């Protein structure tokens, strides 16, 4: 199958021609298949957010192309606008963009801009609210009366309601407690399954991306340094650490165990770790 999204030799320079000129992306190329879950990791300032804003046409590349279904999103005005709806982008700390009187109206903002009929808007708002676990009553309250985690969910629902084929989330779990994080990750997975959507998620939590993603993109210093399955990426633990990135805690533990002489393979999720330990103990599952 042809990739849904193809990025070729993307370069972005901020503030060209001023003393603040800054290369934020340098020769980045990759492609995304329909239905994939891609995790994007990289240290602070490596260009992740900049890259994400290119994928729905918010930022225009200094050079390079972005193709959605084989057609450049900058081909003409209509295509660019279409890309905004087909590629939904949830920003870092999206709760700061809420503005409407009620949660319902805020979620409806995107679908309204798509000029959908009223009953379709209503259906989408309710469905999106369902995906993120907001109740009927909560739809009628002011978004400013909600807790931080709930606000975040309203903001995510606001993008989901546009039913994008590709849903991009920039650190959706930043600043939430473990329970809130789990729920948001589950919401994202629910949406993916229901709509067969493609997900791209930027995260600083290695264990989250290791667990959720089929594929990882590793950014460092404005470049794409690695592109592969979590298996492939986390076998390069040394390089990751050198790039100032962390590896999942469980990988750390198992590296230590290996150093101590235990015959274990490298792992990056808790499930893998369990099965390894079980194997070590001789197949006995009641540990």
């Amino acid at each position, binding site marked *: 199958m042809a990739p849904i999204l193809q990025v070729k030799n993307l370069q972005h320079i901020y503030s060209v021609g001023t003393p603040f000129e800054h290369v934020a992306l340098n020769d980045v190329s990759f492609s995304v298949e329909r239905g994939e879950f891609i995790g994007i990791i990289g240290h602070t300032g490596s260009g992740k957010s900049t890259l994400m804003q290119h994928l729905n046409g918010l930022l225009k590349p200094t050079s390079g192309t972005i193709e959605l279904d084989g057609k450049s999103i900058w081909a003409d005005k209509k295509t660019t606008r279409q890309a*905004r709806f087909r590629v939904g982008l949830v920003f870092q700390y999206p709760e*700061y963009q809420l503005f409407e009187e009620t949660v319902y109206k805020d979620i409806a903002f995107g679908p309204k801009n798509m000029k959908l009929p009223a009953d379709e808007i209503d259906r989408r708002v309710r469905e999106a609210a369902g995906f993120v676990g907001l109740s009927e009553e909560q739809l009628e309250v002011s978004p400013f009366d909600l807790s931080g985690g709930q606000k975040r969910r309203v903001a995510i629902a606001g993008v989901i309601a546009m039913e994008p084929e590709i849903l991009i989330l920039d650190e959706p779990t930043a600043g939430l407690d473990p329970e809130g994080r789990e729920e948001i990750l589950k919401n994202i997975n629910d949406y993916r399954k229901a709509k067969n959507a493609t997900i791209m998620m930027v995260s600083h939590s290695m264990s989250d991306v290791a667990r959720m993603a089929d594929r990882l993109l590793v950014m460092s210093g404005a470049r794409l340094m690695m592109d592969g399955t979590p298996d492939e990426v986390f076998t390069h633990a040394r390089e990751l650490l050198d790039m100032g990135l962390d590896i999942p805690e469980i990988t750390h533990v198992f590296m230590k165990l290996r150093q101590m002489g235990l015959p274990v393979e490298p792992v990056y999720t808790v499930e893998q770790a369990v099965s390894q330990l079980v194997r070590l103990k001789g197949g006995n599952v009641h540990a």
Partner: protein
Amino acid sequence: MLKDITLGQYFPGKSPVHLLDPRTKLIMLVVYIVALFLAVSWISYAVMFAFLVIAIAVSRIPLKSIVKGMKPLVFILVFTGILNIFFTTGEKELVSFWGIHIYWEGIVRAFFMMIRILMLITGTFLLTYTTSPIALTDGLESLLGPLKVLRLPVHELAMMMCIALRFIPTLIEETDKIMSAQKARGADFESGNLLERVKALVPILVPLFISAFRRADELATAMECRCYHGGDGRTKMKLLRYKGRDYGTYGLGILLLAGVIVLRSFGL
């Protein structure tokens, strides 16, 4: 992008102009503006212009940035020029149509007015481009210090200005971010009639105000936590002190002003 607006932005650097005491630069700007309004002839304008060009060259501010900063002011410039061309009467009539007479004097006057505004703004840019907001308010506070006798809250005013200047880039960045976020939800700020465009601003203004108030709150708390309680007894880490180059600059300023006045007294 909004961020690219350079009006009043500081360009860090180490040129002799950057290193001058902010008080020197403030006073020099005043001297320069006074001289500009006293200048009446081609010769004095040429002198002022040369002074400005040298100052820009020494400061190593790229000309491009200054030209870019001018862009928002093109309208005012053109407007001033047109007004002066149409409404100045004189002796040498050049053309007349529809009852409008255009005189040679009008054109000369329009030219001088535009040059004056351009030079005035460039001078101001030179100050803000080479002086950090903090240094600028420090300088102002120190220069206005004597007014404390008149019970003018000089320190508070300077602090307010300092905070306002400090937060302009932050708010611009924030506006940029909120605009992008709303655009990602299909908001359209570029098309529609006036009413629709004004309406399109609501999704930006509401979050912007909320975050501005939140920031103000946080800042107030942070300042209180560091025991800030006004200017009384507050000492400074960086004391302003005049150096040789400041005296030299003042000398140049006096020379410039005197020169323009002498030229003026000769009717030049």
